[in-house]
């Protein structure tokens, strides 16, 4: 319980620092979003009409109040997940834009991350248990190969051949243009059809890392005394491989996995840009191109939030899987 309390305090502390930085950094940067917007509308070099500028500032909620009072206001907004209006998708609020994009990212990248962890770890266990045999050689060298692909290149090649040349998969989007999200079988199949290729590229390119890591941990663990003793005990092979080797070998990967889940939102950028997938990464890409500061700020906050919460979850998960970090037993 004390461990939990400590981790929780730490979580709150990091969250506060992150939220504060998210407030400070844009405000310490030179430039004013309202003038950016004016310049965009009127073309550079035109004289800026102060009244129009003020109108835009009011519209965008840009304040000239003291930093401190802005900060209090900002904290209140963060708690209510209210980040103001998006410049580019005006008049939608940032909250609305993020709300629309987040489920797609969590579904596509989240599921792919989980899948690649499960498949990679499973194959890693298999490869280590049959090490230096045929299965191991094939699986290990293949994953060393896929692991070396630059993701962007790999995704583009996949799109080019499978979607553009062969038309097996749609080129862009999360569902067919013209339909709108409903809970019908047809729509769900369409979503799977659209999501399959991006998911495949993620799984293939990240699976190798899990596989090699797990294989490595397994081989180290195989050298442990308790594994030797398990053999001496005449336990069944599967039991030894599972409870004595894999169960211990997976421990270092648990943290890595929770962290990977935390980076799902941040890491979705490349996939979503290549596949024009309407998730957070794509929204962030558009926000950056269009200098949509409120949207960027909102998305950054979501990303930081995910990483911090995942970190916290990793700590808690570790307590569950490794008895050595459990303290103060009830």
């Amino acid at each position, binding site marked *: 319980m004390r461990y939990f309390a400590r981790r929780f305090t730490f979580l709150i502390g990091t969250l506060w620092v992150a939220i504060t930085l998210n407030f400070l950094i844009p405000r310490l940067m030179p430039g004013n979003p309202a003038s950016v917007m004016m310049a965009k509308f009127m073309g550079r070099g035109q004289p800026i009409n102060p009244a129009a500028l003020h109108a835009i500032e009011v519209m965008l909620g840009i304040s000239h109040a003291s930093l401190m009072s802005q900060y209090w206001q900002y904290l209140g907004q963060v708690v209510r997940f209210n980040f103001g209006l998006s410049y580019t998708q005006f008049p939608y609020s940032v909250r609305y834009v993020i709300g629309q994009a987040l489920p797609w990212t969590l579904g596509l990248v989240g599921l792919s991350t989980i899948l690649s962890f499960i498949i990679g770890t499973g194959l890693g266990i298999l490869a280590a248990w049959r090490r230096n045999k045929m299965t191991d050689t094939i699986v290990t060298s293949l994953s060393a190969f896929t692991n070396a692909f630059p993701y962007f290149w790999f995704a583009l090649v996949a799109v080019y051949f499978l979607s553009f040349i062969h038309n097996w998969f749609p080129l862009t989007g999360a569902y067919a243009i013209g339909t709108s999200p409903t809970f019908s079988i047809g729509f769900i199949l369409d979503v799977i059809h659209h999501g399959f290729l991006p998911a495949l590229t993620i799984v293939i390119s990240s699976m190798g890392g899990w596989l090699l890591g797990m294989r490595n941990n397994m081989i180290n663990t195989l050298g442990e*005394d*308790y594994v030797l003793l398990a053999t001496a*005990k005449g336990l*069944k092979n599967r039991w030894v491989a599972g409870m004595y080797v894999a169960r211990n070998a997976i421990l270092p990967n648990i943290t890595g996995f929770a962290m990977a889940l935390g980076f799902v939102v941040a890491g979705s950028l490349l996939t979503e840009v290549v596949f024009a997938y309407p998730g957070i990464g794509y929204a962030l890409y558009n926000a950056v191109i269009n200098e949509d500061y409120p949207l960027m700020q909102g998305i950054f906050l979501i990303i930081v939030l995910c990483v911090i919460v995942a970190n916290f979850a990793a700590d808690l998960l570790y307590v569950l*899987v*490794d008895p050595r970090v459990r303290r103060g037993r009830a």
Partner: protein
Amino acid sequence: MTLVAVQDLSVDYGRLKPVRAVRDVSLTIAENEFVGLVGESGCGKSTLGFAIARLERPPARIVSGRVVIDDLDWTNTDAKTLRPHRWQDVSVVLQSGMNALNPVMTIGSQFRDVMVQHASVSPDEVLQRSYEVLDMVNVSRQVIGRYPHELSGGMKQRVVIAMSMLLRPRLIIMDEPTTALDMVVQRQILENLKRIREQQSFSLLFISHDLGLVLELVDRVVVMYAGQVVEVQDAESLLDSPIHPYTRALLRSLPDAQRDGGTFEGIPGTPPDLREELRGCAFAPRCPLVQAKCQTTSPPLVAVGTAQVRCLVTSQEVPRGSDHTVR
């Protein structure tokens, strides 16, 4: 009744310029007999112990010889056939301080898995037997629900010894079971083993570099030097009349409790490189009684009375009946 017969066992580490850690070792262990295996660190005791239990790990490999336990040739049996015999016939206790217990399983579940995978037993029987063996080693029954990291080094080692008794094995191989523990705990464990012997019959191969400790516990001592057996003798007579110069040196180096402030006498010199073929007696470079023939002739293991000795000089010293070559 002979329970274990090791015949001409040789074990190498590696293939290119291998270290021959065990060299043509033959020894027997009778039923209910406690045998001590002693020698300096690095002389091949652990390698031999692991090879007997067929637990040698690469790069170790048995190059020749046989290990017959209860009429089953363990060197010539595949892993699958061997599995049911493990722990049932031979259990092992690893060196203290090694992490022999799985850190993510409770002690209870590490007792349970070996019991349920060897016989169909009820949860009640598992618990009953677990309590029994814990009682034998004087460890609180509560450790059943504990994880290894919650126990002290001495407790862990006693738990490991308890675990080795679970299936009432015919032979237990203990490799330096008390070496990393302090003197008090070491003594307790020794007393424990003596008491367990009264409750349950089993043979023991007790491996240690500490001849003094071994002599307190065992019936017969096997002395190893540079991968070879150099002397085998009953514990009592060994204490009175060691034959091999190496055994004598080992005995002299014991801190003698009776001699107040007895000086610790090490054995000068170092053992030979085990990668090399031995020419003559392996102990010759360090031997105080060395003669010219020792440099050229490899001494065989010969019977001297009830003992066996590998020495050209001392085996002739006191004629005790007719000498004849054992190997």
